[in-house]
């Protein structure tokens, strides 16, 4: 029985009786005159609708008793428009009957069609007939010529059960019995009639169940729903919205909802669906060519970049507002949960640390949708309704008075979009592009305009981070800007509207501060970026949460970050972007990892560790600069860790024979560690490297000194000046007191040593002095800092302050330590009797040891013969030194540095330029000029100076030979050393260390 019902008012019903078994299909004649039906009783009947009579009947089909048993669905089709022909699928052919006469005028068949045809469908133009068969074969005939123009096999071989032509005639949508929908594309059959290329439209067929589980399928599903809806994007968006409504009604975040959120997150998707989603499809699933194909007819005429709908404002650490049970805020302080179902509209505030406050339960009569939580207060806000203004409510639970709550109405037409709490203040960004500040007690404070619609805000201590829409993004990108404001005593803007870098086609998911107060944020691609204050407030990616996800649809919902220890606190969400409120999710901890290259290699790992450590300890300097107390222990610990890493990297590069790299690494090290590196280098017999490192060590100490000077000079200027000389000064006096009986030679020798040292100190001012000795360097470190401060200043200060002993003691102790380190070296170099020397006069011998070592270096490199040039400088130093009668002699033996050579030549010029300068100033001036020379030039000079060394050694040796017993030990050693060429000396050094 077939019933015809008038759809509009269902008033007219007509019944066509006659079928003896279930009806398989019916079809209207386009002129509404006839109706054709097929039935399981094997008949195909044409009815006259008006008369409700059977016009004709053909026993064409096999008889069955039920639709499920029918071999073919026998979906009939009238030719559109004129309705001249009726197509009836009969077994493997399609019979064509002429309208009116109901004679069979033809039959379409194809030798490839071996299984019953299920369904026939006319193209809109009526020229072509498509048939879908059991087994998945799609065939298209040109009806006039009865020729097959197109054959397509369903790639999974599922039975095609329905066909529909696109109104333009270029595509066919079909469904199969497994619940998949496919699209046959690129039918260019209009003209030629020959088989044309078909896009493989059949797409991965998946079962019904899958459709709702997996991302891909879901996307496909959507793509398809889009194809069916002639209304383009709007309809697609509606589809989305329909789906959305499912979520609130269940009140639970389910897979489906989560996936929806994937595209739709923060509702951006609902607007951008058309284009972007299809783009995504491409990425996600190459196999589903359906989606792009489907996109084709939908694509608007404008083909350029499409503006991205700006993402909506959100509270970092909250789940979407449409959920009935949601987190309104989850941060390091606690959790604010919102319930909004039939029985209850309430807010639960819970603190991680119950010591802060006990949990609270509030009824949410105002309909708050935003919340923030700090150690002091809970801030809530609701959007405005028709008759009520947008309200801001603050539960200031830490208040010591009895009024724990205040509320503020925003002006009419202004809505709260984002809010946050800091220490003692609350900030609200509104739809009027205003940033309103309140004190936590409710006093209105500053107000300022925002450059764009706010996306989110985060507060920490005195810092406020505001992310806003800088401009319109295109093609799925968001164009966000960021402002970082600092309140408190020094109010200022740390970042003024820089663009916020986001991963391609992503949006902001979370923004906030680490517990230490460094801004960081997470985008929808799971990339966590942190502010790098040391690099001009840039953003460094520190973690990719998606890397740790097991499956594609899993996400981590970030709730907080800590720099020390390095923890990213987040909640793993299976198959969604955010967690459900129940069961209560547990916080997991992810480690940070900088995305450096080749982190699988040892080198890459160490580099990553090092830079991560550097980055994550930036906050120390920030904290101290903003007046917080800093965990010193942690800081030193981290410094140590960094230096250790550097040393390891250094050793690794050494092993790999990468000496240049070693030097680069050394430049990152602190001075103390460089000395270690030097020792390592010399031990592994890399003399060249050691030498270069030595220069770095010098540079570093100079830098250090320069850094110190500006701070300390004003206060300790006199101290400092003399300190440069202290090293030698007391020694001299002592020498006078105690060693007068010693012969001239010895004095000379001692003096010599001392001179070396002053020389050294002077050279240290010149960071480019190439010729300074390598092995001596370690000993320089502690001394250097004091001893190297400008020795020329001594002349100015005039008097040697040997009385400033207190400070010196520490110097000497430092010195001792370092020279002790060195002792074995010199000992192995043939000087075991050094101990006794040390005993009687510890500080002095210290100086001696020092000088010996220095001498080694200077002997090696410097020329002692050329004295005249050095004299003035030396003189200057001598001037205050009343106890230096032998000084003049010894100067002859002083090594000559490149600077001195240069000075020789240029002194005249300098004096000519500045005739009124005294000796000291000349040197200063000269120093300055020498520094301005190019590195090459300086190198030239130092080379020259080196070239002149050598002969001096002999002179020295002769003298040393006559030395007294105690001194001879030392001088022997020195002779030995000095007679060797530099490299052998170094290797001796190296051996001794072993």
């Amino acid at each position, binding site marked *: 029985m077939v019933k015809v019902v008038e759809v509009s008012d269902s008033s007219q019903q007509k019944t066509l009786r006659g079928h003896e078994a279930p009806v398989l299909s019916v079809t209207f004649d386009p002129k509404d005159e006839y109706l054709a039906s097929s039935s399981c009783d094997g008949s195909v009947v044409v009815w006259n609708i008006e008369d409700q009579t059977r016009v004709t009947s053909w026993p064409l089909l096999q008889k069955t008793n039920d639709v499920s048993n029918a071999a073919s669905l026998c979906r009939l089709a009238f030719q559109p428009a004129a309705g001249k022909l009726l197509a009836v699928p009969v077994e493997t052919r399609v019979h064509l009957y002429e309208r009116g006469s109901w004679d069979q005028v033809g039959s379409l068949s194809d030798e490839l069609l071996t299984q019953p045809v299920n369904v026939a469908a006319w193209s809109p133009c009526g020229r072509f007939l498509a048939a879908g068969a059991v087994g998945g074969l799609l065939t298209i005939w040109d009806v006039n010529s009865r020729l097959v123009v197109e054959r397509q096999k369903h790639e999974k071989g599922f039975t095609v059960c329905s066909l529909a032509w696109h109104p333009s005639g270029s595509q066919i949508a079909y469904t199969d019995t497994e619940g998949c929908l496919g699209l046959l594309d690129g039918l260019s059959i209009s003209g030629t009639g020959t088989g044309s290329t078909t896009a493989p439209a059949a797409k991965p067929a998946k079962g019904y169940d899958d459709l709702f589980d997996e991302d891909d399928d879901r996307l496909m599903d959507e793509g398809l729903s889009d194809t069916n809806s002639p209304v383009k994007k709007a309809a697609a968006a509606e589809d989305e919205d329909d789906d959305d409504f499912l979520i609130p009604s269940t009140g639970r975040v389910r897979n489906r909802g989560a996936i929806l959120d994937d595209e739709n997150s923060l509702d951006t998707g609902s607007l951008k669906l058309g284009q972007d989603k299809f783009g995504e499809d491409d990425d996600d699933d190459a196999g589903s060519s359906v989606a792009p194909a489907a996109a084709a007819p939908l694509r608007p005429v404008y083909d350029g970049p499409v503006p991205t709908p700006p993402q909506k404002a959100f509270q970092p650490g909250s789940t979407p507002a449409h959920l009935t049970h949601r987190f309104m805020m989850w941060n*390091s302080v*606690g959790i604010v949960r919102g319930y909004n179902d039939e029985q209850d509209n309430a807010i639960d505030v819970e*603190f*991680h*640390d*119950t*010591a802060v406050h006990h949990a609270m339960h509030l009824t949410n009569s105002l309909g708050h949708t935003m919340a923030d939580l700090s150690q002091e207060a809970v801030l809530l806000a609701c959007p405005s309704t028709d008759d009520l203004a947008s309200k801001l409510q603050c539960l200031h639970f830490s208040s010591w008075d009895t009024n724990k709550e205040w509320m503020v109405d925003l002006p009419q037409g202004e809505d709260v979009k984002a809010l946050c709490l800091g220490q003692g203040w609350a900030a609200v960004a509104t739809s009027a592009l205003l940033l309103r500040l309140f004190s936590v007690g409710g006093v209105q404070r500053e107000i300022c305009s925002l450059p764009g619609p706010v996306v989110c805000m985060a507060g920490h201590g005195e810092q406020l981070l505001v992310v806003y829409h800088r401009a319109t993004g295109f093609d799925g990108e968001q164009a966000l800007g960021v402002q970082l404001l600092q309140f408190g005593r020094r109010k200022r803007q740390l970042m003024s509207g820089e663009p916020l870098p986001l991963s391609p086609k992503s949006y902001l998911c979370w923004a906030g501060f680490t517990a230490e107060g460094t801004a960081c944020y997470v985008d929808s691609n799971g990339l966590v970026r942190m502010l790098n204050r040391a690099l001009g407030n840039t953003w460094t990616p520190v973690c990719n949460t998606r890397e740790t996800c097991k499956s594609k649809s899993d996400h981590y919902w970030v709730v907080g970050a800590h720099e020390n220890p390095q923890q990213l*606190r987040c909640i793993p969400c299976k198959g969604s972007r955010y967690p459900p409120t129940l*069961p*209560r999710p*547990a*916080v997991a*901890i992810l480690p940070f990892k900088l995305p450096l290259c080749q982190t699988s290699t040892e080198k890459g790992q160490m580099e990553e560790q090092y830079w991560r450590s550097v980055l994550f300890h930036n906050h120390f300097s920030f904290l101290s600069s903003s007046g917080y107390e800093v965990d010193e222990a942690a800081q030193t610990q981290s410094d140590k860790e960094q230096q250790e890493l550097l040393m390891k990297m250094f050793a690794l590069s050494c092993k790999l024979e990468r000496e240049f790299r070693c030097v680069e690494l050394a430049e990152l090290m602190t001075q103390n560690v460089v000395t270690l590196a030097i020792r390592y280098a010399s031990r592994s017999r890399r003399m060249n490297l050691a030498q270069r490192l030595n220069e770095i060590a010098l540079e570093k100490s100079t830098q250090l000194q320069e850094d110190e000077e500006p701070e300390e000079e004003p206060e300790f200027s006199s101290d400092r000046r003399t300190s440069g000389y202290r090293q030698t000064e007391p020694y001299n006096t002592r020498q006078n007191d105690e060693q007068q009986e010693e012969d001239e030679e010895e004095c000379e020798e001692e003096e010599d040593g001392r001179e070396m040292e002053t020389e050294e100190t002077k050279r240290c001012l010149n960071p480019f002095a190439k010729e300074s000795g390598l092995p001596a360097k370690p000993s320089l470190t502690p001394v250097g800092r004091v001893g190297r401060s400008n020795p020329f200043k001594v002349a100015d200060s005039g008097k040697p302050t040997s009385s400033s002993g207190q400070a010196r003691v520490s110097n000497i102790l430092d010195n001792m330590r370092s020279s002790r380190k060195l002792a074995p070296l010199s000992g192995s170099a043939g000087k075991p009797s050094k101990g006794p020397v040390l005993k009687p006069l510890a500080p002095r011998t210290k100086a001696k040891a020092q000088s010996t070592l220095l001498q080694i270096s200077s002997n090696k490199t410097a020329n002692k013969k050329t004295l005249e040039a050095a004299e003035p400088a030396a003189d200057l130093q001598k001037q205050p030194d009343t106890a230096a009668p032998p000084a003049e002699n010894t100067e002859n033996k002083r090594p000559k540095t490149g600077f001195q050579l240069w000075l020789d030549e240029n002194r005249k010029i300098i004096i000519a330029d500045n005739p009124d300068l005294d000796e000291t100033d000349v040197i200063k001036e000269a120093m300055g000029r020498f520094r301005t020379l190019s590195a090459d030039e300086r190198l030239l000079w130092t080379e020259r100076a080196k070239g002149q060394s050598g002969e001096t050694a002999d002179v020295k040796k002769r003298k040393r030979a006559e030395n007294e017993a105690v001194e001879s030990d030392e001088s022997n050693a020195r002779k030995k050393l000095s007679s060797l060429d530099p490299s052998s000396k170094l290797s001796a050094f190296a051996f001794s260390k072993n």
Partner: protein
Amino acid sequence: MDPSEVEFLAEKEFVKIIPNFSLDKIYLIGGDLGPFNPGLSADVPVWLALNLKQRQKCRILPPEWMDVEKLEEMRELERKEDAFTPAPSPYYMELTKLLLNHASDNIPKADEIRTLVKDIWDTRVAKLRLSADSFIRQQEAHAQLDNLTLMEINTIREFLLDSLNCMYKLRSNLQPGATKGQFGDY
């Protein structure tokens, strides 16, 4: 060994808790615990977890195996296999009892879990009894007891040993030597 002793041992097992207080590391003979950060999970022994829980200082996160689906799977496996399957935890029974008694509000579907664990326990103990029966019946000299937990061994040990002793005595009475003794009694 009585069950309370086994339970005592089970209390040394670690569970995760989410404290709601903050405390530095605590140094105990058994090892360092903590540091405790509010909201961040920490591993502590069961005894401490229960203590903190009773003082409302923490939430206990159920162990991984304490999950309805996993337990159902185990139950099915246990029923299917003739031999013992590996227990979800060497102290599964004790932990279930302890945690469910004291922290059932932190464990989702506590009742189902209780039933499931009881099921598993019953299945295993039934198997144990069965195998003990066949052990005795077939007069085996030794038996392999893989995958048995301490508590399970403990439940059957006393009874089995005593009964074996008894049986040994009874059997040895049947021996000729023993009959001699009987004669001697006369």
